[in-house]
């Protein structure tokens, strides 16, 4: 019989574990979201200031014959509002290890994204705003086009995260990528809200 107690097997100084490095993707996504938001707000700032100058001079902002209908932008906003719910549904689902629901949520979100892009393209056709007619129309297209690019990036990000979820990379223990995708998507929708008010509502 040995006289060594079990406690003596426990070293007095236990080396600490490797520093946990979670949240790197979340930090980077937050910074990128801020950067994208600042760039987009810079565009909106230009739009608002130039519009104010033109209106102060007593002129009409939109070129003659151009009408921006409200129905399409409202439905586009509604589509994106639903997409926010579904993208966060994917986060909630993966937190519960509910993969089927996570996949459905991702798929529905991407469908909403495609629907939004399609509606924007349709809006272009009914606005009859020629990009070459005036600098104002070019400015409007630059802003809407920039938001379409941001939307496409958000969709690509969500698709990659969906595939990684499909590959088993994410679960209730680690769902950082899915969370980041939702964060970027939400930022994109928030930017649409700003654009909706600045361009489609105030015109």
């Amino acid at each position: 019989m040995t006289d060594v107690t079990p406690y003596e097997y426990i070293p007095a100084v236990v080396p600490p574990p490797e520093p946990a490095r979670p949240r790197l993707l979340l930090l980077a996504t937050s910074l990128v979201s801020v950067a994208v938001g600042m760039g987009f707000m810079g565009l909106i700032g230009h739009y608002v200031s130039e519009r104010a100058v033109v209106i102060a001079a007593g002129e009409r902002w939109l070129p003659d014959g151009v009408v921006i209908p409200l129905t399409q932008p409202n439905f586009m906003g509604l589509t994106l509002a639903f997409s926010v719910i579904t993208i966060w549904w994917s986060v909630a689902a993966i937190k519960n290890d509910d993969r089927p629901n996570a996949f459905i949520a991702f798929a529905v979100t991407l469908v909403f994204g495609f629907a939004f892009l399609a509606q924007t393209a349709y809006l272009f056709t009914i606005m009859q705003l020629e990009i070459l007619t005036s600098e104002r129309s070019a400015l409007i297209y630059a802003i809407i086009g920039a938001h379409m690019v941001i939307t496409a990036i958000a969709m690509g990000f969500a698709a990659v995260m969906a595939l990684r979820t499909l590959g088993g990379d994410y679960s209730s223990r680690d769902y950082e990528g899915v969370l980041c995708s939702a964060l970027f998507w939400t930022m994109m929708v928030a930017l649409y809200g700003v654009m909706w008010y600045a361009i489609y509502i105030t015109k």
Partner: protein
Amino acid sequence: MALTETRPETPAPSPVGATPITVDGLLGTGDHKTIGRLFIGGGLIGLVGGLIVGIAAIFYANNYDDLAAASIDYLPQVWSLSRDLVLLGGLVPILVGLAVYLVPLQIGAPSLAFPRGAAAALWTWYLGTALLILAYVFNGGPGGGRRDFVVLWAAALAMMVGSLVWAMVCIATTALGARTHGMTLERVPHTTWGFLVFSIVGVLSLPIMMAELLLAFVRIRYLHLPIDQSASLTAVTDGVSLPPALYWIGIPVLAMAADIIGVHTGRPVRFHRSILVVIGLFGVLSYGADVVGLGSVRGVDFENGLLVFGLLAAVVPVLAVLALTGDSIRAGAFVPRTALVGALLSGLLLLAATVVALLGLVEPIMGFLDELFPDSIDMTNSLVLNGTRFHEGIRALVVGAALVAAIAALHHWSVKIWGRRLAESLGFVSILAAAGGAVLLAAGEVAAGVDDQPWLPVRATDDYPAGLAAISLIGAAVLAAGGLVLAADMAMSLLGRKPAGSSPTEWRGSTLEWATPSPPPVGNFPAAPIVTSANPLADGELRYADGTAWAGDGSSADDADQPVAVEAGEEAR
């Protein structure tokens, strides 16, 4: 007890050049050290090129008679190329390169966060810079006559800015999320903190410039801007090249100065947290004051009260950092090395920039007083500098400060970066040339502003004194010479000098990068360091997470033949 076991052979640190450098190895690298070196090298080439083009810009701007007769006015293109290259093709990439290299080492991380992303940023920046130069060569850029190449200029500049923003995201993420055990934010070295603030301010402000570039792209691409008015596109880069936004590149200048002064005087700066606070304040002021100026007319809007406040307040953090580091200089040993002298000079140049910028406030302050006391203030003799070449004077001082800081930093960390030392004599020459040239150029440009000469790219008037023109021209040439000497120093060091070896410098810092071999191996540290103070090497008792201890210059726990962290100043005393 006799030691019967031989010490295990530890692999000697491999200096740069010891292993063959292959193209696929460079293109596919994910090592933050290689990426940082490539950023620094490319930035140095861009900086020297930009400074040389800057001489031509000053030459054209001074309205010499023979040039006035020229049928084509190249001034907007030359000036814009110089400004683009010096800032976004030179100084900012050098600072980003230093950050990519140093931040993981200083916080005890084995690598940068998203190293492949940083590599992508590096190559995108190189491509963007090459396309930018190509655009100017084929008569593009602001003031250019070929629409396609003006469009290419906007796209190339957007690529450069976007890649730098992405690199800054990697740097900030590393500093915020990859710190080792015990490395709280209040314990991070000044340099890392400065690069963190620098990166965050860059992430917040550079995208606005990208938005302006997008609008410029659309305007010129869709024929809304007549090609003969393309010179107006120089305004696109005003957002980052005018004070107080320009002070943004001064943030790491202050931070590196604090670290370098602490090491070379042998007295780590006592008021660590205070310096972190004032560096952060400097970042907030440079950014905040810039933001409130948005939407105003292009150029510095001196009628904006908050902007006036920002310019006034920017002096305080610079003074504070110099005052706090002054304690180390006073109590420590002043060993006149390139790094120490450069750090001091860079801080003083930055202080000069913020103080000289205050001259521009005479006009709005007099205007304010005139509104309060309309009958008692005579505005006719008020100093009106807004919209004159005065802005170029401030820019020269800030650029000079950043260049001198870069020289000091490269001398301070050269053995860590390349495993080789830079020549002290050449270092002094480059620092004195850069600082002297910046002061001369600033003096000439501020004097031109007082003489009411219009801001570039408008040429000087016919009555512009030749003496003032000569001061600016000589200053620009001497400043460029400073950059050239630095480039020559680095080239000679890399190509001709032997590796510095295992005990490479007379100075040894107390931050974590000095616990690694020179240059550090892949992975940087044998295990994650455990940090208990802001100067973890000061007591020589750094421990790693695997239970081993640091005992010298190398990463091996038994590398006892290396001197324990001793400051040069301590030895001197």
